[in-house]
Each structure stands twice: as C-alpha cells, then as structure tokens.
C-alpha cells in the first residue's frame, strides 16, 4: 500500500534563494510527523507546497496516489488537507462560531440561490454543519468563547480556535505550522493534548512544524529534519536525537558558526 502523502524530490527557489532542495518525504496514514530544523531551513515552504500555496519548481507531490503537485489550494483543501498558520489567520472581527462555520465552507453544497431561499436544503445543511462545529467546540473546550469575537481572545486561545477552524474541514491530513509558537507552558500542554486527541479520536494524519523540542520528541511518531533546504535526517525521535548531523545543524560545527537555530 502506498503512503498517504508522497513527496518526491521537490525543490523550490525564490529568485536566487534555494528554499527547498530535492526533499523527499513519505507520510503514513494516521501518524504524527514532525518537521524540525533551524530558522530558514525551508519547513514552512514545504508545508506551503503540500497545501498548494506554492507549486514546486521540480518534483512531485501525491495524495492517496493522485498527483496534487499543481493543484490549487482550495482544491487541496477539498481533498482533505487543512492547515493552520504560523501567524494566526482568523477573521478577528467575527465570532469564534462564525470562524469555525467558515471552516466548513468547502464542505457546503448549497449554492448562492438556494442559500437565499434558505429553507429546505440550505437549512438542513446549516444544521448539520453547526452540529459538526459544536462537536469541535466541545472537543476544544471553548464553549464559553462561542459568541466572542476572535480578536478579543488571548493568543493561546486564538491558536486553539485556529486549530478548530482547520478541524472544521474534517481533514484527512492536518498541517500545523508552529501551533505552540508564542504560547506559555500551560497553553503548550493543552495544545499537545489536543493534537494527540485529534490524531487518536479521528485518525487524522498530522504534519507538525514546531520549535519546542520537548513537545516534538514527546508526541511525534517520526521526525524529519531539514537544514538549509535539505532533508538531513529522518526517523523516530530517539534516532533523530542521536544523529550527529542533526546535532551539528542545531548546535553549529566546531568553528562556532551557529545559525540562530538554538531555540530548540
């Protein structure tokens, strides 16, 4: 059986900067895979190529055996790939509930006309979507925030709502770009718990970019390490931790040419 997501030899350059160079990665169904690496290693670019935000210059990406290398982001989303962003991307003036309902957008079938009429199909659909969104609200324990504008929430809670918005899509694969960035210890623990629960309860495959090594090593099934746009290691957390190349990328070589990746 093929992997759920196959990334084969993808490269991406921005002008003269080679962001990702011939990276290959197979993601198995139902696993939590973390992508780590110093700042500027190309992690977010890789995520952007999976979600169709960027298209690779070369190489191919396949989801369930079907190629999605040049598919538009909205279509990738419709195929079941949801993501969160490093910098929170929510509608700040809208309530938590509205943001989550928007997350259901690609799953809504009724068109503009029937929505105008509202009764019938559109109403039935709305009720079903709301039910699903309420499940997510319950799951993420944000019942008290339902009617609040997202802009007024604490940072850690906004991160949680963003995860909820991605979950509203009912994704097969969830791409999380630094879901714990800027969070305090408690918020990190909550988020780690939610990620594990999503993975367990719904069998969602998770690709995670995260700088907190404690969390990464704790919750990942596998870890892939990028440095300067290239994959330098891959394996279980223990294997990666012991890999001399990884240690070098993170701590710099003997000359002391560290590269600012000391946050792990």
């Amino acid at each position, binding site marked *: 059986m093929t992997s759920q997501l196959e990334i084969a030899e993808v490269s991406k350059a921005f002008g003269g900067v080679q962001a990702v160079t011939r990276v290959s990665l197979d993601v198995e169904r139902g696993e939590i895979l973390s992508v780590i690496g110093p700042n500027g290693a190309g992690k977010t670019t890789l995520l952007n190529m999976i979600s169709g935000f960027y298209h690779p210059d070369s190489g191919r990406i396949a989801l369930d055996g079907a190629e999605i290398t040049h598919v538009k982001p909205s279509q990738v989303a419709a195929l079941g790939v949801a993501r969160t962003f490093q910098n929170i991307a929510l509608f700040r003036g809208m309530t938590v509930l509205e943001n989550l309902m928007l997350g259901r957008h690609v799953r809504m079938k009724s068109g503009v006309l029937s929505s105008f009429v509202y009764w019938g199909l559109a109403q039935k659909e709305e009720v079903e979507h709301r*039910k699903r969104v*309420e*499940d997510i*609200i*319950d*799951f993420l*324990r944000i*019942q*008290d925030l*339902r009617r609040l504008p997202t802009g007024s929430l604490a940072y850690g809670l906004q991160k949680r709502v963003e995860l909820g918005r991605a979950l509203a899509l009912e994704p097969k694969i969830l791409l999380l770009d630094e879901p714990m960035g800027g969070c305090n210890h408690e918020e990190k623990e909550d988020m780690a*718990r939610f990620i*594990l*629960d999503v993975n*367990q*309860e719904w069998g969602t495959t998770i690709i995670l970019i995260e700088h907190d090594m404690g969390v990464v090593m704790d919750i990942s099934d596998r870890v892939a390490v990028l440095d300067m746009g290239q994959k330098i290691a891959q394996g279980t957390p223990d294997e990666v931790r012991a890999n001399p190349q990884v240690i070098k990328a993170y701590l710099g070589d003997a000359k002391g040419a560290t590269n600012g990746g000391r946050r792990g």
Partner: protein
Amino acid sequence: MEADVADRTTLPRLLLCNAREFADRPAIREKDRGIWQSWTWRQYHDQVRDFALGLAALGFRRGDRLSIIGDNRPRLYAAQLAAQALGGVSVAVYQDSIAKELAYVWNHAEVSMIVAEDQEQVDKILALRAELPALRVVIYDDPRGLTGYRHDWLRSYSEVQETGRKFGTTSSGYFEAEIDKGKADDVAVICYTSGTTGHPKGAMITHANAIGVAEIFCREAHVKPEDTSLAYLPMAWAGDAVYTLFASLVAGFCANCPESPETVQRDLRELGPTTVLAPPRIWENMLTAIQVRANDATPLKRHTFNLFRSAAERAEILRSEGKAVPPALRLVTALGEFFVYGPVRDQLGLRKAKWALTGGAPLGPDTFRFFRSIGVNLKQVYGSTETSGLVSLQPDTEANPTSAGRPVPGMEVKIADRGEVLVRGCSIFKGYFKNEEATREVIDPDGWFHTGDAGFIDPRGHLVIIDRAKDVGALADGTPFAPQFIENKLKFSPYIREAVAFGNEKPFVAAMIAIDLGTMGNWAERRGLAYTSYMDLSQKAEVRELIAGEIRKGNETLPDATKVRRFLLLTKDLEADDAEMTRTRKVRRRFVAEKYAAVLDAFYRGAREVELTTTITYEDGRQASIQSRVHIEDVERAPVHV
C-alpha cells in the same frame, strides 16, 4: 416485582415515585453542544437502572462505596443514585483536589469503583492506581482522548449501561428488589469535610437525614416541582448534595447542569432559575461585575444607574428598619424597577428567582443590601456537612446581613457554655466513617451535635454565628478575641481577598492580608500603576496605603481593643494547594500560624520589615520557594508596646 410506590424512605424509592408521578416532566438538564438537553424523570430512572445493573454485573455489592469525580453532570448524579439503589454509598470528591488528598479519601473510604468525568480525572486515578488497593473499576463519562487507554479495569459509562441492559434481561426485577432491601437508616453519601486540622473526615449522611433535611428545606423555602435550579457548585460539597440531589428528588424539580465551569454566568442568564444558591464570593463577584460595567457605560447610563441604585438602597434601609417608605421614594423605585433593577436582574440571571440563598461564610452588608435593594430576595442560610447542610434559614420577611436565620422546624438549637452552638434534630449525621472517637467528640450522649461554631441567639430568635469556637481566645489584657469576626470585617473590602488575624494572648490585633488580584489589578491599571506580578503589586506603596485605608474602615465597626493595629500584605494568595486553606476556603489557622511564625514574631517585636519565604505547591505536587522582604505597616496609632 415493583417496589412500594408510596414508600418514600430512601432516595432510590423517591426516584421510582417520581418516574411514575412526574413521568415526562424534566428531571435534570445539561447544556451540551450549545443546547439544553433534558432527561425526563422516566428517562432519569432508566439511566439509573441501566447503570445500576451494570455496576451489579461488575460486582458492586451492598455497602460498597462508589466515588464520583468531575463537574456537575447528569450522569454523575445518576451514578450516585445507581450506587444507592444497590445499597451502596456514594462518595463525591472535589475535582480540583491534589493527588495526595484524593488518595487519602479513596483509601479511607475503601472505594471500589470510581466514576470519572473525563480524561483529566482518569489520568489522576491512573497516576494513583498503585496506591489504591481497594479500587477495582474506573468508569468514565466523556470518552474524549481515552480511546487509546487499554486497561481491563477501565470502562466507558455507555459500556457499563449496555452490560446493565443485558444483565437486566437475564435477571429481571433485580433493580427493584435491591431498592426494596434499602432502609432509611442506610448511609446514602459520605461527604469528606475538609477540616481545618488533620485529615479530612467522612461524614455519613443516611437516607433518613437526606430526605428529612430536604423535606424541611422544600417546605420552608416553598420549593415546588415547577422550580428550576442551576447545579454548578462542587458535587463534593454537602450543599450541592442536599440541593441538587436530595431536594430535587423530594420536590421533583428540575436541576440544570451548566455547559462548562466557564459558562456558568451565561448559562445562569439563559436559564433564569427560580431558585439560586451561591456562596458569598459569587455574590461579591456579581456586584463587582455590575460596578465595572456601570463605570464603563456612557455618562447618561451611569448616572441613571447610580441615581436609581442609591434610591433603592435608601428604600431598602427603611424597609429593613421597619419604617414606611415615603410615596416619592416609592415612585422612584417603581420607575427604577422598569429602567434599572429589572434589566440588571435579567442580566444576572436572577429575574425569575423567587429566592436566593447565601451561606458558608458571611456576606458583606453592602453587597447584601445591594441585591435586596434591586429586588433579589437574598437570604442567609446556615448549616454544615454534619447537619446535612441545614440548621437555620431566614424567613422572607426577616432577611438581614448579620444573622444566620431562624432554626428550621425539627431542629433544636441551644448555646452551650463558652458560646458553642449545639444542634439536635433529624438531619444530624450518623457519624464519621471509621472514626468512632471523632464521632463521640461531636455528638454527645443526648444527641446534641457540637457545631464548633461560637454564636448566640438574638432577641428576635435568630441564630448569630461569630466564629469557630476553638478560635475564640483573648488578648493579653483579657479582651475576648474572635479572629474570624475581625477577618470578615476586613474581607468586606473588595480589595482584600483573604485576611488572617492574630491576637490570642498578644497585646493587640495584627493581620496578614492577601489582596484580590482582580480588583486591585483593575485599580492599579486605572491609576497607571505598572506591575508585573501578584508579588510586585502587593508590595507597592500605593497599594499598602489603600489597604491601610480599607483596614481603617473595617476598624470603625470594631471595638477599640480589637482594632487591627498592624498588617502586612502577603506576596501570594492563601491556597488550598499549599494547605493554608480548606477546599471550601476556610483558613487553617494553626497551620498558617506555624508557617508564618516569623511574621507573627515581627508583628509583636515591632519590626518594620520581615524576610518572607513562601513555599508554593503546584498542582502536580512540585514545590518551589520564593524569598522576599515584606513591609509591615501600622494602622492609625503606633502599636502599644509591652
């Protein structure tokens, strides 16, 4: 075989009665997925029956103890009734207890089964599993996050009910037969009291106690089947057991469980219950919230609010003194009802409340008067775990902020030497579980329960509580000294969250104060006073000055000899996790005196500063200590040196 329907001697029998009599009326509700979902009395009965049969199939026998841990949820209430239907005892524990306390209670009660709300609680049990030899089965309500757990002793609530349904088909009549074996004198619940000294003690409350007290309460407070209540107070607290579990069975009214602890205020407003029970802290928080919102409103609204508020308070003072309210003032308050009081009550979820009760601790007279003035029928109630939660209650026409109300019919109250309040009646508990000695200490051969509270009966016949009897001492010059009485005067300030007064065998009274971070932080922000943490804020000169003023205000109502002369501001709040308070927020006086011995010494040595080492216990039991130098302040005159 059917149990005798007219028999109302045990809680499970009441459930059978209600399932027949009230059948399709709502029994208990919970807000889930944003919608209020009800169980009718018949459904409630079926839920309890299936679960009870499941427990039986798992080997739960008469006299066994079942514990519940979690927020208020219908399934947890049903689990308690299921255990009782099988002749078992329910032991609810505080969901925010630390591991050590939980292990003590579960071991002491020899709990064989625990029903836990969710993963968070299951994880706590998992961590303690090796220390709990009597525990055989753990059942969880919310399966979220638990699918990956593989333990043969762990089961889901639905799974147990499914087992129960199968068991029911092979042994029909089992449930009813077990209920039939129940006797009024059987223990229904064990409530562990978070005593201010030593280990918690398990107070055994029988079915007769439970039903007796609930019947008196429902009669005195005019509770009807049409009433509604919000069940949001900890299930381990005797008050919730009496009110939500016992009284709802006795009267047949509908209890409502909030969606989550964070949504209580909103759920309260949505529901508009007809009966409201809340400790003083909640009333104070509501008043603070109203004041903050009034201050943030537009000038017109703010003036309108303040105008009608002061009119209402003037009228309330006249009414409480038994004087007539002049027609002009009556007209103003009638207008106020339309423009201000009604809408405010509506915002707070108190619009439909026919009465509201406060108990457990004294409520500030200003707060008390405010709620009464805007038309909330707020009254005080007094009781303790050992008296099944009820001794005295204020009648509608005699509400006041100082007394604990009139002893309810069926309860005898007398004052012993040294001022201790003694109580006798049907609601006095059976004794402490596995602790005959402690039981003999509090229940004398004549059946009087020694409450440990010092108090007196006032000329109207109301009981007035001053303090814990054992805490009442005397200053060096012999002046009687009741620390809690003084602390309560101080705590009426919105800026003071906790206070501990010292003075026994000392020349004067001194107090340690924990500021209220919410209101004090708000005050600091409005003044542009920057601070980083609780510790930082508590040591600001401006803050110390403000508190000194608040203490002076409190002192005005105290006799000269027992005025607070010196105080210091603690660098952290008093916490149950640090064993400084009980879970119901009562100060563990002896422990605190030992822990802060250096402060006591400094108070009476006349020192201006003291080195304070605070040890903090985190929820997982880890400890950390913080060192700081703390100022000691003098209030009014310089202290009298000896």
